[in-house]
């Protein structure tokens, strides 16, 4: 298997190459065997060292790896009887998102997955996972179907953003996303969202409101892509590594900010290095959360969904402000000034 590797993975690739060279020798002396053992150890150590200390930008790169498992890979591995349903019944079928019904441990579920390609050809067909309004409307149609028949909903997020194009604007990209967010809040079935790769902005949130939001270890989720942010705030796309750091977009950051509920671990080096392990981990997380959520009453579900989103945000209230006034007379002077400005 020759995986595309990033610059920061080069030390690993070099060791791997040496190791496989030695291993391919037909006659191995005791010295060679010792060297193999030694290299193996060194390789593991190097991997742990590199993958254990990934920068935000390196994780963004892993999240974008062309061999990274896509929504359909997870769907095929985790569900049975996957039956894809096409089209929004209004305009078209958007291949950038797959929707359908399946069984999860014999429970019927509705599945929505933003779908990137595995190669350039598929990426062109799937528009790199960038949805059009009809994609958001298709997803909502399937989610409403789930609501009608009380199927839990599982969403896989993997998009560089909603598509910015003429047709998308003409057909109301903003309205489609806004309406989806609002309507997803009212669905009377459990919604579990898993961010498996890229979660860019409204494009992700447009199908991303959930009772539980899970995130793969090397996925990213943010209001804007690091490149987009860099080109606006730094006026230079090359500053993306810096903006990735500043935006706090990794799974660890988001857990700390209480925007996600749990991080799903990936095999060392990313999901693409051992997809089976990634599928297993996602399966386990889905299973436990689904069981828990299905025991909740509809009222409880919606109530908790409301609370989850209602509390997100960081701001200062006046009470907190008053702590900034060390001396009371300053405070009362300010209050007096207030009175005057009102009068």
């Amino acid at each position, binding site marked *: 298997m020759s995986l595309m590797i990033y610059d920061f993975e080069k030390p690993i690739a070099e060791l791997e190459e040496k190791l496989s060279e030695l291993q391919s020798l037909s006659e191995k002396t005791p010295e060679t065997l010792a060297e193999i053992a030694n290299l193996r150890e060194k390789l593991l150590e190097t991997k742990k060292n590199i993958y254990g200390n990934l920068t935000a930008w390196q994780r963004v790169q892993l999240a974008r790896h062309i061999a990274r498992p896509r929504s359909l890979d997870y769907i095929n591995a985790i569900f049975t009887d996957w039956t894809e349903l096409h089209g929004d019944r209004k305009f078209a079928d958007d291949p950038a998102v797959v929707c359908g019904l399946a069984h999860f441990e014999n429970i019927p579920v509705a599945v929505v997955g933003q779908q990137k390609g595995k190669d350039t050809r598929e990426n062109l067909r799937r528009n790199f996972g960038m949805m059009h309004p009809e994609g958001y409307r298709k997803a909502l149609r399937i989610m409403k179907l789930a609501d009608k028949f009380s199927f839990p909903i599982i969403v896989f997020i993997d998009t560089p953003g909603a598509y910015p194009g003429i047709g998308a604007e003409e057909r109301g990209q903003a309205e489609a996303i806004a309406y989806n967010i609002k309507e997803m809040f009212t669905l009377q079935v459990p919604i579990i969202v898993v961010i498996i790769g890229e979660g860019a902005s409204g494009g992700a949130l447009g199908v991303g409101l959930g009772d539980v939001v899970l995130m793969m270890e090397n996925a990213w989720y943010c209001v804007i892509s690091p490149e987009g942010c860099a080109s606006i705030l*730094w006026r230079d796309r090359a500053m993306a590594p810096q903006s990735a750091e500043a935006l706090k977009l990794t799974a660890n950051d988001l857990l700390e*900010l209480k925007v996600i509920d749990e991080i799903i671990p990936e095999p060392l080096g990313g999901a693409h290095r051992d997809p089976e392990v990634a599928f297993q981990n996602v399966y386990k997380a889905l299973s436990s959360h689904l069981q828990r959520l299905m025991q909740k009453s509809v009222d409880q579900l919606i109530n908790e969904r409301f609370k989850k989103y209602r509390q997100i945000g960081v701001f200062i209230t006046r009470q907190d402000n008053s702590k900034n006034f060390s001396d009371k007379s300053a405070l009362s002077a300010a209050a007096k000034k207030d009175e005057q400005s009102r009068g």
Partner: protein
Amino acid sequence: MVWFRKKKYTVLEAPQKKDRIPDGLWHKCENCLNILYKKDFEANFKVCPKCNYHQRLTCWERIDLLIDKGTFVEDNVDIYPADPLGFVDSKPYSQRLEEAQKKTELADAVVTGSGTINGYRVEIAVMDFRFIGGSMGSVVGEKVTRSFEHALEHNLPVIAVCTSGGARMQEGILSLMQMAKTSIAVARLNEARIPYITVLTHPTTAGVMASFASLGDVVIAEPNALIGFAGPRVIQQTINQILPKGFQLSEFVCEHGFIDIVVHRKELKKTLSTLLSFFTKTSPV
């Protein structure tokens, strides 16, 4: 942290009137560059009589335009922005906030409150583009949500006057989540059958357009306002072709079915009160 010591706007009437006294007699239209007699321009609600360009209004000018004199009571005055990510680009976010607060004398990019429109009591949220491009971070999200909740509690129709370049990048994922928070607040208005009218002004794009701005029971726009999801520059770069004439302007968006009415500024108050007369059972005070 100078801005914390700013006066709080518990105002009964829109302040800063003195700012609007012309310092010269003439005004140059930002769009057609015609020189206008300032008095005429202002009598025409800051709309250019030559080219119909609707110049941006501050939130106070907007409140003055729409809300009956002396009836506006600002709420949610105790909420100020923080810098949750410790964000620094070419300058620290905290410094950007401070500068914006100094420039606008606002806590953040939205003012909320209640008042009457031709006698109809409403809750109103008005955005101000001067404050970091009207971007939505935690404060805008929280104030808009509280404003909608206040309306819910007091059974008041809601007007949201929008102008925004989108979500506030410097608050990262937290600003994205304000789209969820405000859209959920709209869902709750819907559920309680509280009328919700949005007024889109130049420009209303990205995160704000992809949340509460799009979701009005009635969506009104001022003429020639830029309205959309992605900015025209981003679209142009992506597709690498010339954008159609009038692309993403109010009339274009209306033609494509996402705006109910495009209304000239001088008709805006009247249109709102007519709409309110359909939705509210109580007669005007």
